[in-house]
């Protein structure tokens, strides 16, 4: 059968061809005891390089020397393997179950479904507490400087606080998602609210000749007594130009419904919401007394609570029902099941047919304006902070003179970036683990006495021109993306407020290049004194979305400490509640008052019948006390 | 070349799960080597089972069947060198005529030139050499039968078995092929056992004729002995 022989020949030929081309090309300086293997969960987009070891910053790191166990300086060779996007948990579980973890010295822990304590008890994770003092001083100093993160950075091992994980942190939080509204519609169809000097007059303003936007929009709550209370207690700089209360939002939604009529848009809507009828992480629900819908931390009571049957959640659904009745809410919000909560129904929002929605920065300002979508003509989308309820419900859920609160539970990145564990494999392989610790400690180094460049720059800013030249190779990533002058420059004069380093404008204009040109997958992307080429508009976005701190949101480092069987119970409870609410909350929103009450009773009955809810809450609070 | 003798030989073939049919009942029969032996009888009288028994294809038998001194059970299929031709021609549809005829020789590891020579001579002998590169589907029934004979002949078998090979051919073609069989018998001297239910076939071809009925041997002898045998069944069979 000639068909077989041909395919066999091809098979052998291509096999041999491939073996030749894939051998490693650069020579290795370090000896066996100092070659380390690291597994990271996330990799870089393969258009930059198909294998993480081709990362230029990593190549530079491999040329440096670090203090080993014997006190001498050693060359190191760090080989990095990365996970497949979406398959990391499966890889992690298989690695642990089949002993594959022994190949690695440092493992990214963010996809483990088992707590670090369990990994430690199973003899996989190394206890770092004794090593902290001598080998990880920078990490220890940062923890001491940030007590609220330090609290959950340690694990409870039979009663004691032990450090089992090396967490990495951002210096400041960069918000990439939040509520946005079409301010150009408010300008065009809104009128000065009564109580303002020009009550009833149309607003003025818009784009000036060089395309910046300014207007004289003031929101009605500014002229109310509650507005003044908000100004004194929460935000003195607030001048009423941005919405703060639910009443402001409803005033805008009314304007949007007229806007839709005027612009003749039939397939648009004033606002829409994630298909279950609420956002699971608490957004908009925490506007009714600061709490969330699932498990959240109540700071005053220093207790972890469950919001699924709270009055705040009920009042929130009441509000949504009223918005639905008034026709403000998208009739088909429950059908966008394949969209993620910060990109609901992009077909409508990105064609400019929605007034207000939860979005990310790509639809801000006039970025959505396109010839082909008529409704986007003159669009100007602005970010808005989480509103506070001053309209619905009584007592605790409503903002008043003697009930001043701010939203505390909503989706936002925290400073916490990722965590890794050192494995105990070195006990068998005899590797110098302390040397690897000094490498990671070097990447956590903020400032140096002798004026040389601190280590964190390598993992955040990348390589300077001189550093790059020591490892430059034609066709590597820096060469292909024009970063041969280095990914950042060291500025001589320190005039403008402590900014010592300046990002290469190429990265400034395309911030997708930041990660692949640096090492920030290994240790967090600490920002430090580095200008980030952000314009004035971006300042407004970060100020609004980052105005409140989501202190009630449970950190990953906290949730990760739950034992595996309790986290299984937590997950099944979480899934059961979510599955039930997904079906019944939309009924309450779309139904009449009788359905509203009946379904709320069903929800309460269902949740109270859940087996593990009490137990999970108990464990949470137990953990909270142990850690603080 | 090959002497075949049945001694009290009976054979069963499986009807259903537990039921077996006795298709041959205590046959004792001597077939002299190089003879043209014809077995005649109504359909279902056990003719085919007889031929299958010689090929060793019958599962359950008792009594003895000796071919050239060795019992049929321990003849290995490869060395048996017996050919069998039935109504179905069983040519390999995906091979050309040349390949069909050459197939048995390839199995016997004979080298290429010899195969080519023998196949060509057989095809010439049966006057079908012009069909060499055609596929069975393009042949007429007569031509197919000739190819089947060629394939049987090419390994010059000691015993040739024919199971009503020409039953659905028109008379002129039947006579022609009978003549070819006769010539083959004269020239290559194999022992031929020819089963048929057609009397004219039996009388033209057979030196010795056996009449079978319901698995039992009714009569055996030359054409004349059969014609005036006194057995009731034979007489009624002849008159049909």
């Amino acid at each position, binding site marked *: 059968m000639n068909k077989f022989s041909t395919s066999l020949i091809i098979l052998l030929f291509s096999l041999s061809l491939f073996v030749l081309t894939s051998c490693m090309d650069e020579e290795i300086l370090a000896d066996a005891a100092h070659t380390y293997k690291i597994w990271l969960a996330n990799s870089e987009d393969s258009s930059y390089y198909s294998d993480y070891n081709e990362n230029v910053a990593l190549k530079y790191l491999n040329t440096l020397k670090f203090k080993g166990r014997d006190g001498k300086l050693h060359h190191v060779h760090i080989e990095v393997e990365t996970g497949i996007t979406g398959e990391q948990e499966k890889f992690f579980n298989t690695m642990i*179950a089949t002993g594959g973890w022994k190949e690695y010295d440092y493992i990214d822990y963010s996809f483990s*479904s088992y707590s670090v304590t369990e990994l430690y008890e199973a003899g996989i994770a190394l206890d770092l507490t004794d090593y902290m003092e001598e080998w990880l001083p920078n990490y220890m100093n940062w923890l001491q400087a940030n007590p609220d993160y330090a609290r959950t950075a340690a694990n409870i091992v039979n009663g004691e606080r032990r450090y089992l994980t090396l967490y990495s942190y951002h210096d400041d939080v960069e918000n990439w998602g939040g509520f946005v509204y079409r301010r150009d519609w408010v300008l065009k169809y809104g009128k000065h609210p009564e109580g303002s000097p020009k009550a009833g007059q149309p607003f003025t303003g818009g784009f000036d000749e060089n395309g910046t936007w300014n207007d004289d929009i003031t929101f009605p709550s500014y002229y109310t007594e509650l507005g003044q209370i908000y100004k004194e207690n929460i935000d003195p700089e607030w001048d009423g130009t941005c919405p703060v209360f639910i009443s402001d939002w409803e005033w805008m939604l009314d304007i949007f419904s007229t806007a839709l009529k005027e612009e003749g848009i039939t397939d648009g809507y004033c606002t829409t919401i994630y298909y279950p009828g609420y956002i699971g992480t608490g957004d908009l629900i925490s506007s009714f007394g600061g709490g969330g819908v699932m498990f959240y931390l109540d700071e005053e009571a220093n207790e972890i609570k469950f919001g699924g049957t709270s009055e705040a959640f009920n009042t929130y659904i009441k509000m949504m029902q009223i918005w639905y009745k008034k026709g403000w809410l998208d009739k088909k919000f429950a059908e966008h099941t394949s969209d993620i909560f910060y990109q609901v129904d992009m077909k409508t929002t990105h064609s400019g047919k929605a007034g207000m929605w939860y979005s990310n920065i790509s639809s801000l300002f006039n970025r959505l304006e396109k010839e082909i979508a008529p409704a986007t003509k003159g669009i100007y989308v602005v970010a808005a902070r989480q509103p506070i309820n001053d309209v619905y419900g009584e007592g605790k859920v409503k903002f008043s003179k003697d009930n001043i609160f701010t939203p505390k539970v909503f989706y936002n990145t925290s400073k916490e970036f990722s965590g890794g564990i050192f494995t105990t494999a070195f006990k068998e392989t005899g590797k110098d683990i302390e040397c690897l610790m000094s490498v990671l400690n070097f990447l956590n180094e903020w400032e140096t006495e002798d004026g040389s460049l601190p280590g964190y720059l390598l993992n955040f800013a990348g390589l300077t021109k001189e550093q790059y030249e020591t490892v430059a190779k034609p066709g590597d990533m820096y060469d292909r993306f024009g970063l041969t002058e280095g990914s950042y420059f060291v500025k001589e004069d320190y005039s403008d407020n402590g900014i010592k380093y300046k990002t290469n404008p190429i990265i400034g204009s395309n911030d997708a290049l930041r990660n692949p040109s640096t090492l920030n997958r290994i240790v967090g992307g600490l920002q430090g004194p580095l200008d980030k080429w952000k314009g004035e508009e971006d300042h407004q976005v970060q100020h609004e979305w980052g105005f409140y701190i989501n202190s009630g949101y449970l950190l990953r480092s906290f949730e990760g400490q739950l034992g595996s069987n309790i986290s*299984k119970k937590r*997950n099944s409870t979480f899934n059961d509640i979510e599955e039930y609410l997904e079906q019944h909350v939309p009924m309450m929103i779309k139904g009449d008052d009788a359905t509203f009450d009946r379904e709320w009773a069903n929800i309460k009955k269902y949740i109270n019948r859940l087996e593990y809810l009490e137990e999970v809450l108990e464990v949470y609070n137990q953990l909270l006390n142990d850690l603080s | 070349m090959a002497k075949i003798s049945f001694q009290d030989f009976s054979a069963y073939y499986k009807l259903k799960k537990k039921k077996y049919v006795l298709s041959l009942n205590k046959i004792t029969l001597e077939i002299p080597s190089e003879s043209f032996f014809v077995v005649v009888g109504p359909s279902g009288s056990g003719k085919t089972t007889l031929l299958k028994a010689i090929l060793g294809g019958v599962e359950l038998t008792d009594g003895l069947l000796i071919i050239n001194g060795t019992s049929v059970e321990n003849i290995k299929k490869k060395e048996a060198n017996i050919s069998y031709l039935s109504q179905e021609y069983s040519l390999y549809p995906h091979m050309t005529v040349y390949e069909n005829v050459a197939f048995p020789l390839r199995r016997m590891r004979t080298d290429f030139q010899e195969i080519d020579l023998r196949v060509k001579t057989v095809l010439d002998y049966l006057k079908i050499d012009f069909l060499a590169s055609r596929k069975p589907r393009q042949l007429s029934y007569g031509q197919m039968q000739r190819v089947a004979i060629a394939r049987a002949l090419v390994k010059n078998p000691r015993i040739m078995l024919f199971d009503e090979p020409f039953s659905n051919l028109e008379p002129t073609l039947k006579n022609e092929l009978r003549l070819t069989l006769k010539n083959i018998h004269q020239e290559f001297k194999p022992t031929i056992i020819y089963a048929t239910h057609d009397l004219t076939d039996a009388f033209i071809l057979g030196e010795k004729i056996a009449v079978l009925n319901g698995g039992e041997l009714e009569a055996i002898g030359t054409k004349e002995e059969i014609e005036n045998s006194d057995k009731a069944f034979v007489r009624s069979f002849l008159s049909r």
Partner: protein
Amino acid sequence: MVQKPNTEFQAKQARLIHSIPKLSFGKRLKKDLKKNWVVYVIFLPVLLYVLLFNYAPLFGLVMAFQDFNVLKGVFGSSFNNFANFKTLFFRDNFGIVLRNTAGMALLNLTVGFIVPVIFALLLSTIRHKRYKRVIQISSYIPYFISTVVVVALWKEFLDEGGVIANFLSWFGFRNQNWLANNKVPVFWLINTAIDIWVGFGYGAIIYCAAIANVNPNLHEAAAIDGAGEWKRMWHVSIPSIIPLVVTMLTLRIGTVFLQGFDKVLLLYSPSIYSTADCLTTYIYRIAFAGSADYGVSTAAGLFQSAIATTLLIISNYLNRKITKSSLF
């Protein structure tokens, strides 16, 4: 040339039928081995392959009865007997889930299975070689479009004002978003329609091959008898592919509970859980949402395998009775 029925012969034949006691199993096996030992020796590589890669991993099924912990591994985890099955089945909506799965499976089995066969038969009656090839190639294309894009397209077609919604509104159905309609057969029909659209070309190929494999003499004989395309398809093509259709049907009955539900996960929404939630999506939500629970997912796999095997054995038994040809 037809022979006169020979009654005397039949009587004689009846006497001869004996019931020979069946040989003992050992003897029959010895006899069979003597005859077919070569066939079994040749089969060894396949046996090795199947034992190694299909049967060896089955030791993992013990996880269905364990509170499986990745750290402790298969041999270290503690047994919790039927707790995994309890978490799976003793939930109030499991009854509805079974009903939906059975409904979709039935539709998938009847309509989903027959369409490729009919398509192949119709295809065989097309005489123009080039046109037939164009049809075959284009019918094959939907199989290659990724599920995500297929679901996105169908969602738009089924939405209010979409292509299909308008088409159905001509027949008096209200122009609505059909994927939000939770009356019983609606979602089942949609799921089967999409499955058919994606797989009928791919599925028909094997029947086209079977029809093409039919002995041309039969077609020729039928043509001589004056049978037109339609008759010939009926009398020649269909009987010849019956054994293959039976084999494929038996396999399909066996695997109907395991496959054909991957699109439901992308199509269904909470408002139509009552008709759309099927075994696969139900198990996905329980075993994989949050962190993967291998104990429960293995238990679910075992449950599905049990159903599939019983269905397979029943359908194979029925086939052996009705059409005499069966898988094993």
